[in-house]
């Protein structure tokens, strides 16, 4: 029986985005094939994995996921160090929860100062994330961009309503950005087109917004697959950005994740690995065990 495996070649590559301090520069994207398709294309960079930390003590975390960090949650700098030193995190995602206008509403300046401290102490690639309150995020992220000038952070979320300010500050101060459009490939493209008028396309990661197993998982899964394919199959230049899947908060909000440690870890790890299979290039996770599991699964590749 003669058989020729039906390999497929694509003529474009996902853009490569490099972020983080020079000594620990992290590259994501760059592949010219579908996720994990090493047998028919090149994937120069394995998916990035970032562990989540907050700038305040988490209020509503399940004890299951609080336990590994119990001793450090009151200090973002120590928290960051523990993720790196004990749990081997290669990248971090700092959430500036304290700036939430509906919550503590701390000023952009205070938040930026904290971001700077964490960035300096961590020395690994850092995502700095707002609270998804458009206007406040614009203020906060601009201040963070300035305070950490030259730090090559990944700043997000940048949305239709605040992109001009944030992208301008990011460009001036040498940061990359995460462009967020909720579950809609058309809006993802629209935002990228708008951004690329003044911002380099290879400094953009897209976030179609994430979800958890059982709670909208299939929408995220398919939107990631579709974005990747609009880029790779249809060669749409505005859809070739690497993709972020930030699964941490959604997964640990699920009631099933809070029922037992094993189930919680798998809730997050299965969500994460599925989105990587769909085409995500960068994951944000919360539990050290799901971080380790996903990393080991993809590193054997």
């Amino acid at each position, binding site marked *: 029986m003669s058989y020729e495996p039906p390999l497929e070649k694509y003529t474009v590559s996902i853009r490569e985005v490099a972020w983080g301090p020079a000594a620990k520069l992290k590259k994501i994207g760059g592949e010219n094939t579908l996720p994990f398709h090493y047998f028919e294309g090149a994937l120069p960079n394995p998916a990035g994995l970032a562990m989540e930390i907050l700038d305040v003590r988490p209020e509503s975390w399940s004890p299951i996921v609080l336990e590994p960090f119990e001793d450090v949650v009151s200090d973002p700098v120590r928290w960051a160090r523990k993720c790196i030193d004990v749990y081997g995190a290669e990248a971090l995602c700092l959430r500036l929860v304290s700036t939430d206008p509906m919550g503590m509403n701390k000023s952009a300046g205070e938040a930026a100062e904290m971001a700077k401290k964490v960035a300096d102490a961590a020395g690994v690639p850092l995502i700095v994330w707002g609270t998804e309150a458009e206007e406040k995020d614009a203020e906060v992220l601009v201040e963070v961009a300035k305070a950490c000038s030259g730090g090559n952070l990944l700043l997000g979320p940048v949305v239709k309503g605040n992109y001009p300010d944030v992208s301008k500050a990011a460009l001036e101060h040498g940061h990359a950005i995460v462009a967020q459009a909720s579950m*809609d*490939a*058309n*809006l*993802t*493209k*629209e935002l990228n*087109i*708008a951004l690329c008028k003044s911002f380099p396309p290879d400094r953009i990661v897209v976030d179609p917004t994430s979800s958890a197993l059982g709670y909208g998982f299939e929408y995220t899964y398919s939107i990631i697959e579709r974005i990747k394919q*609009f880029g790779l199959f*249809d060669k*749409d230049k*505005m*859809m070739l950005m690497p993709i972020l899947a930030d699964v941490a908060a959604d997964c640990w909000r699920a009631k099933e994740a809070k029922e037992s440690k094993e189930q919680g870890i798998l809730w997050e790890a299965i969500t994460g690995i599925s989105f990587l299979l769909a085409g995500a290039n960068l994951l944000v996770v919360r539990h050290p065990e799901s971080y380790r599991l996903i990393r080991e699964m993809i590193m054997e590749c």
Partner: protein
Amino acid sequence: MILIGEDLNVMSKDLAQAIKNRNPDPVERCIRGQEMNGMDYLDLNVGPVKKDPVETMEWLVNLVQGITECPLCLDTTNPVAMEAGLKLCKKKPILNSASGSTEGKEKMMPLAAKYKCGLVLSVINDAGLPADADERAASIMESVAYANDLGIANEDIWVDPVLMPVGIDQRQIAAYMEFVRMLPDIVPGAKTTCGLSNLSYGVPKNLRGLLNRTFLVMIQRIGQTSAIVSGFDEELIRLVRGDLPDLVNLIHRAMDEDDVDLSGLSPKEVEYVKTTNVLMGRSLFSSSWLEV
């Protein structure tokens, strides 16, 4: 191309108010304007009319028939209001609309049979909107068979394939077009119509007309016989009435060729080509489609 003017619509706040207060002036302006622009039918979209359905419809139909000779397309989800309106029509009206759902079969189709009027029949059924062309075909055949049994002839059926917003699922556009092409085979003699402006729902206002116009030219070419359109979009009317043959030819060319050379085209022509490309599904739609 039979054009049905959509502008008398309770989605417009002013008109809704005018109908509620029985104020004839805004209605008259709306009707006269559309008539002047050459609409073949006028759609009277009164919504579900929960309050005084009979009286409201009677007032409106009498008012409009006093202003114009143009035949009417009655558009309400309330069967009581519908019947009140149909009774008064002097010229053969169109009932807009019935679907293949139980409600459509039991409430609306019998009215169309009773008053021997036209019937807009959509491909929606109890299972919702069919996902592709084949499912649309399966649905409409079933509904048409039902309508035929009630004594409604194919010639009186205006099939509505249901046009979905381009921003929601671009693939539905291809499914729409595929279905329009197969329609003569499955419901011979029937007409086609659609609510054209739904195509551009969610798109910035200043760009909606361009999408609507381009698509109407595209589907006119493949056999669409009618559409419910804005009676105030003069360019749209000129396009489908044959007054702008160069633009029409350009859109046809852009349908056939993947890469129409944009050099030497006027800005307007470039817009039509880009819009055709996006409606043909050649590139992913975004509201900035003219900018790339």
